[in-house]
């Protein structure tokens, strides 16, 4: 199995405070009280690593998006309003906590690579510690209670991010999607489907021990990765000229473009990565880091915060596309198609 196909893992846990109404029906004052109580607990030495608490009201659009782009915050939470929301990051970005979003507490863990089990272990420990200050809304039959009843149960969502351009290109992802649905899992494009990067997760499945859910997502990820590998082989065998042509063109654009959108960059990196894994491409710059890591740092807020001296608060600035093209030229310098 190509070790690069499972590019990232994430786990989240949804919980609510027993004595309070859910966020959308509770008074702002009660939610603020809850936030203050939890933030107070996060800043004690009760934890193995410290929490860094953020003041969301004082953050710029780019700073909030930077958290989303790093998998520390969900897009839905970043777009919600409400003065009682709170946010904190654990240790060295190992996990994060959204407070008073759709649910009172949403613990998140995100890491590159095949890390679902270790993320679940970490989140379970943090969940237990958080319970020292919170009293979770729970029902023996329903499990952990959530604002959306379809999510009640374990409250756990396990996500595996996969790089499957060959399955997407050949339309074979459709059959895979149907198979996933039958198991209560779902599949969604991560960046509008660019580069064949998709995310699978337990959309409907909430019953069963958490470890079973995590194992199911892991097993399906591996099965999809195997399919991707066999389809790539088939493409190389049956369409060798077209495959080289597509990869060669991608390298040409990556080495010579002066303006590049994020979606285009993801597509080009994806092609370069496939070429490298199939032994068609030598790209020392790309080989030095994972394709997913390169894609991640080319997102708009990353470019603004890591490359621009004057930090714009506009994520559509043309300068972002220019800087992205420059980074691509640097990474792909010296890359060749064999």
């Amino acid at each position, binding site marked *: 199995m190509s070790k690069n196909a499972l590019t990232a893992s994430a786990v989240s846990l949804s919980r609510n405070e027993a004595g309070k109404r859910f966020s959308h029906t509770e008074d702002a004052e009660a939610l603020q009280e809850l936030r203050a109580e939890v933030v107070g607990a996060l800043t004690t030495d009760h934890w193995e690593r410290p929490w860094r608490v953020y003041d969301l009201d004082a953050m710029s659009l780019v700073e909030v998006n930077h958290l989303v782009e790093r998998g520390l915050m969900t897009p839905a939470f970043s777009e919600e309003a409400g003065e009682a929301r709170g946010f904190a990051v654990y240790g060295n970005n190992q996990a994060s906590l959204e407070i008073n979003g759709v649910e009172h507490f949403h613990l998140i863990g995100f890491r590159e690579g095949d890390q679902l089990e270790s993320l679940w272990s970490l989140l379970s420990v943090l969940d237990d510690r958080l319970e020292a200050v919170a009293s979770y809304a729970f029902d023996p039959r329903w499990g952990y209670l959530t604002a959306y*009843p379809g999510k009640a149960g374990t409250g756990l969502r396990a996500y595996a991010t996969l790089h499957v351009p060959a399955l997407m290109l050949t339309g074979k992802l459709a059959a895979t999607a149907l198979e996933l649905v039958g198991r209560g899992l779902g599949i969604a*494009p991560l960046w509008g489907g660019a580069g064949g990067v998709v995310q699978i997760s337990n959309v409907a499945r909430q019953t069963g021990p958490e470890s079973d859910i995590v194992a199911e997502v892991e097993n399906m990820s591996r099965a999809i990765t195997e399919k991707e590998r066999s389809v790539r082989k088939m493409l190389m065998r049956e369409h060798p000229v077209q495959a080289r042509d597509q990869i060669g063109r991608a390298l040409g654009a990556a080495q010579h473009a002066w303006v590049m959108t994020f979606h285009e960059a993801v597509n080009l990196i994806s092609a370069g990565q496939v070429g490298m894994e199939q032994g068609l491409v030598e790209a020392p710059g790309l080989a030095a880091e994972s394709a997913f890591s390169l894609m991640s740092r080319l997102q708009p807020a990353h470019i603004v915060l890591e490359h621009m001296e004057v930090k714009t608060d506009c994520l559509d600035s043309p300068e972002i596309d220019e800087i992205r093209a420059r980074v691509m030229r640097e990474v792909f310098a010296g890359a060749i198609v064999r």
Partner: protein
Amino acid sequence: MFAEESPDWNVDLGGSADCELCGEEPATMHLLRVVHGAVSHTHLCAHCAEGVAEQTEGLALVLAVPSVLRGLSKKSSGDQEEAAEPASANREEKFCGVCGTTLSDLKESGMVGCANCYRVFADHLEATVRREAEPIEHLGKVPIRGPESDSLRHEMMRLERMLRELVSHERFEEAAGVRDRLAELGQRLGGAEA
């Protein structure tokens, strides 16, 4: 980072609960197509979804997620029964005394307002959200600080499931041990609740 949530987590009020292709079967699949960056959504029955999947070629991407909350939409079977009731019944609409959420609110937003809603709207939730779930009891983690009765009930449900398995495999001796343990926990539960 996380993919955008499927719109299925929010009830699509304008959408039909029937398959958008054949219009006959219930729409249990949500197909999301991304073609050249343009996203479109379709709600289909399993049969039609399979047909669409087979026909998909080239760069057209078909993705599917289950319409788990479809049952909460206006056309669910439970609603059809309620629709037959006279309009005056609305005046006595079921509502949650803790958060004020009414059954109409729940049907419109797909959200409950508090933990108590799970008791108030139990029938509706059982008939919609849980209708496709295999085991109806929670098998995962339980709160550490929850009442003792919660963990006892959880353990009893686990043992009841084990008992059914043992009986179906005719392992009666082991089943008897589990039954005794269940009786013991039942007594403890009675004490804890008292």
